[in-house]
């Protein structure tokens, strides 16, 4: 009985087990086909997407930044170069405990809180296998210190990156300019492909104007990479194209002479080769350390530069707009002669002031007692104001504007440097347009002595002087002589034809006597010169002296003192160099500005063949 029951039960159990086993087999087949379906979906349906992703994983495109072109002076001396800069970099993926590593490193090398903060910020933005700088600009001792203990720091290494370096930072800060990190505004402007590997861009000066030439073209390579970023092999390679080297017309020795000659004054100096327009010296003082910018300037230093009352960041040569003062007189005299308003021998009585017909206002001469009867020659030699009040009154503003604009006043010279200011050559039309007022005759008189609305840049003055030296023909000022081996073209400016060529001689003689006659305002600088200089002094008022008020030099505060101006060229017979000098708050042109020009001429005429 029992056996039969067991047998029956065993058979039932067997049956049950079989049916459950079949259920399991069905279940396993379901699992099997669901896996196959999933794999088919990945490998056929979405294969293309994943194949692309695998390819992107595998191949890494890395950019190779081009080497920035060098900048030389006219004699081949380097003004801008690329030097290796050593930075301490960490690869987070390869470091177990970054906090501890940084701590150990800071025992070895000075590392500031700011640098650690910056490192942590960059780490969040970068991939795990990217190399992130912890400290920049290691000096050689620090490099050696780390190198000796490098084996203790896996994942930490020293990287050499090219850094822009200026051997004459203060001297060239306003010519060569500087490069610094690319900002957001520039990012929108530049070609993002070509700048993919670049950290720096020209911000001012030649570095900015010739950015396109200097930068070069980016190269790239495609490498097969591991997930850690290690490259296994190079698939394609396109080398970068280095930027072009530039040779400037600047003579750095002459530049230094000019810079030093200014002494402690702030001011601007331009020296232009009259035969080519080549700018041999371009000084805006004070300059600044342009290397600070390429190394990444800190806020404190930057604020100090921005807030300094001497405005070291301001390019006075290109953007400084000064009243030309008496330096404008030779050009006005020439206008008078050319329009036939005056004759060379014609004399004007100077009682020390000038009054418009039917007006009581006295326009003063700088010499209170007056110059007496003055002809055109003496008006320049002694800088007689009354003569020019009279002349301006006769010429009237329209003719003055027309004639002076032919010398380039009121418009950019077109020098190969960005951000040039245009100065201001006033006219009736200009005043109506900008001030909605008509022109007053009194304003013509003031314009006649280079004051009032008149504003010129030092570069415009130097250029106009070159035009005068060449008797009408001159060249556009240029800084860059050669791009790689290609000479930059010399561009003549529109030649000025006068009714009579003799008028040039009249003015040039007078300017020569400014320096070389016993009564000239710049007679000081003729002493011991082996060549002859022609020039004109000027004094530009910083603030206006009220009617019947004395200009008391002793009691005027330094920053309100007159600017001293001097324009000159030499040698008189065969001109080589035209110079404009502006010494801010320097006082008299003859005593302060003229000796600076003499120092430059001495250097230049002695050293040029």
């Amino acid at each position: 009985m029992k056996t039969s029951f067991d047998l029956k039960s065993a058979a039932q159990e067997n049956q049950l087990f079989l049916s459950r086993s079949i259920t399991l087999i069905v279940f396993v087949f379901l699992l099997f086909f669901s896996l196959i379906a999933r794999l088919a979906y990945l490998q056929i349906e979405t294969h293309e997407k994943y194949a692309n992703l695998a390819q992107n994983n595998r191949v890494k495109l890395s950019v190779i930044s081009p080497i920035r072109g060098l900048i030389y002076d006219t004699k081949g001396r380097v003004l801008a170069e690329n030097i290796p800069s050593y930075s301490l970099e960490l690869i987070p993926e390869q470091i177990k405990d970054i906090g501890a590593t940084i701590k150990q490193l800071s025992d070895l090398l000075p590392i500031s809180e700011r640098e650690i903060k910056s490192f942590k910020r960059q780490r969040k933005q970068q991939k795990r296998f990217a190399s992130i700088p912890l400290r920049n600009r290691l000096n050689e001792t620090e490099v050696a210190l780390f190198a000796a203990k490098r084996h203790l720091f896996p994942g930490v290494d020293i990287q050499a990156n090219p850094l822009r370096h200026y051997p004459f930072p203060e001297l060239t800060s306003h010519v060569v300019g500087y490069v610094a990190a690319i900002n957001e505004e520039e990012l929108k402007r530049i070609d993002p492909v070509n700048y993919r590997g670049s950290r720096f861009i020209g911000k001012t000066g030649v570095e900015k104007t010739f950015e396109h030439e200097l930068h070069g073209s980016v190269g790239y390579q495609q490498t097969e990479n591991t997930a850690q970023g290690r490259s296994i092999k190079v698939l394609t390679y396109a080398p970068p194209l280095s930027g072009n080297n530039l040779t400037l017309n600047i003579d750095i020795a002459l530049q230094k002479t000019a810079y030093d000659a200014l002494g402690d004054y702030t001011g601007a100096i331009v020296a232009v080769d009259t035969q080519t327009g080549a700018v041999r010296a371009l000084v805006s003082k004070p300059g600044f350390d342009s290397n600070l910018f390429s190394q990444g300037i800190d806020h404190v230093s930057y604020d100090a530069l921005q807030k300094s009352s001497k405005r070291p960041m301001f390019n006075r040569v290109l953007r400084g707009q000064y009243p030309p003062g008496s330096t404008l007189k030779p050009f006005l005299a020439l206008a008078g002669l050319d329009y036939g308003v005056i004759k060379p021998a014609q004399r004007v009585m100077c009682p020390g002031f000038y009054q418009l017909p039917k007006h009581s206002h006295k326009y003063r001469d700088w010499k209170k007692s007056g110059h007496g009867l003055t002809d055109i020659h003496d008006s320049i030699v002694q800088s007689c104001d009354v003569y020019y009040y009279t002349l301006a009154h006769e010429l009237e503003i329209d003719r003055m504007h027309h004639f002076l604009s032919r010398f380039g006043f009121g418009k950019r010279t077109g020098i190969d440097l960005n951000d040039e200011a245009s100065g201001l050559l006033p006219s009736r039309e200009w005043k109506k347009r900008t001030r909605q007022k008509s022109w007053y005759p009194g304003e013509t008189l003031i314009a006649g002595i280079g004051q009032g609305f008149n504003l010129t840049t030092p570069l415009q003055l130097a250029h106009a002087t070159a035009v005068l030296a060449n008797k009408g023909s001159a060249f556009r000022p240029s800084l860059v002589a050669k791009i790689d081996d290609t000479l930059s073209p010399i561009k003549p400016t529109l030649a000025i034809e006068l009714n009579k060529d003799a008028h040039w001689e009249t003015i040039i003689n007078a300017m020569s006597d400014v320096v070389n006659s016993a009564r000239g305002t710049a007679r000081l600088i003729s002493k011991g010169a082996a060549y002859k200089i022609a020039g004109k002094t000027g004094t530009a008022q910083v603030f206006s002296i009220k009617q019947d008020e004395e200009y008391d030099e002793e009691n005027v505060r330094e920053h309100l003192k007159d600017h001293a101006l001097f324009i000159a060229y030499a040698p008189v017979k065969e001109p080589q160099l035209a110079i404009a000098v502006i010494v801010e708050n320097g006082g008299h042109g003859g005593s302060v500005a003229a000796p600076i020009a003499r120092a430059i001429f001495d250097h230049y005429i002695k050293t040029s063949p």
Partner: protein
Amino acid sequence: MNNLFQNTHYHNRKNSILQRLHLDLTLLLLLIGLSSLGILILMSSGYEDMGLLQRQATRLGVAFFAMFMVAQIPPHILKILAPWLFFLGTLLLLGVLLFGDMGKGAQRWLDLGFFRFQPSELLKLATPMMVAWYFAERRLPPSAKHIFIVTLFIAIPTILIAKQPDLGTAILIACSGLAVLFLAGISWKIIIGVTAGAAAMTPVLWNFLKEYQQQRVLTFLSPEEDPLGAGYHIIQSKIAIGSGGLYGKGWMNGSQARLEFLPESSTDFIFAVFSEEFGLIGCIGLLLIYLFIFIRSIYIATQAQDTFSRLLAGSLSLTFFIYLFVNVGMVSGILPVVGVPLPLVSYGGTSMVTLLIGFGILMSIHTHRKLLSS
């Protein structure tokens, strides 16, 4: 298929050398084929590291030897051993929790001085053995009381291992025990009822999971949320599989693994390497080998002569395929990453030894059958 279901003629048995060695030819060939394929894949995923291959080959040798030894033990001895092994394993699990080594952030190893040992591996076998033992002398289908007791036998090791925490193994052990319960004929009402209850309990279970386990589930649900962190594994794995296409990139040519984009490419994610290099065709072939092994095993179960052997063999068969399903499922992104290796292919020793001992048990069951009286 015919080969798999081939009926062994009893009069041949005595004459067969394999029969005397207690080995099943079909299973043996499939297992050797699969582990040889594993070595080939490991050559590619392990960057031709000969040391790694040598270690894997040694382990395979040890595992096959263990399989052979276990196959010699008749099922009734295994039945006697079952409760002892289960209680020993449970004790060792407690020992791990109290004195275990931390390996990769989880307590799984017990250092016995001369060798290190994972008690959870023992329980992969001991749990289904225990449940099968319990049902062997009882009437089936089981009553509610017996189901409750058996549930305790399954729950204790499962919970202890989940606490280590080793979710993958816990799931496999629970599966092996539940498989016995299912084969023993637990009623469908209970199965449906418990499944529905478990679904309702999911939010509670969620809180029971460790934070990294929760993270894995979240990552599984949306790996793109965290491409460089927790989602990295699964994204790279899907790229590897998907980029393999129909025919694959060829052996040793899978860029994902060879360029180290695929993490754990020799262990848990080795299936992705295989998929990348051999494509869908290769995957179907590989999965078919697993399927054949399962079919041969479940066939052995149906041929078994006593309840203990039947239930145990059925459970071992299913667990083996669940192993595969969980691994391929997680690597291909349809299951969360729970850390289950690809059986007999993934690099690593202990699980391989356990698996092959399981097949040793199957072979023992199949080759120790008594002649039926005519």
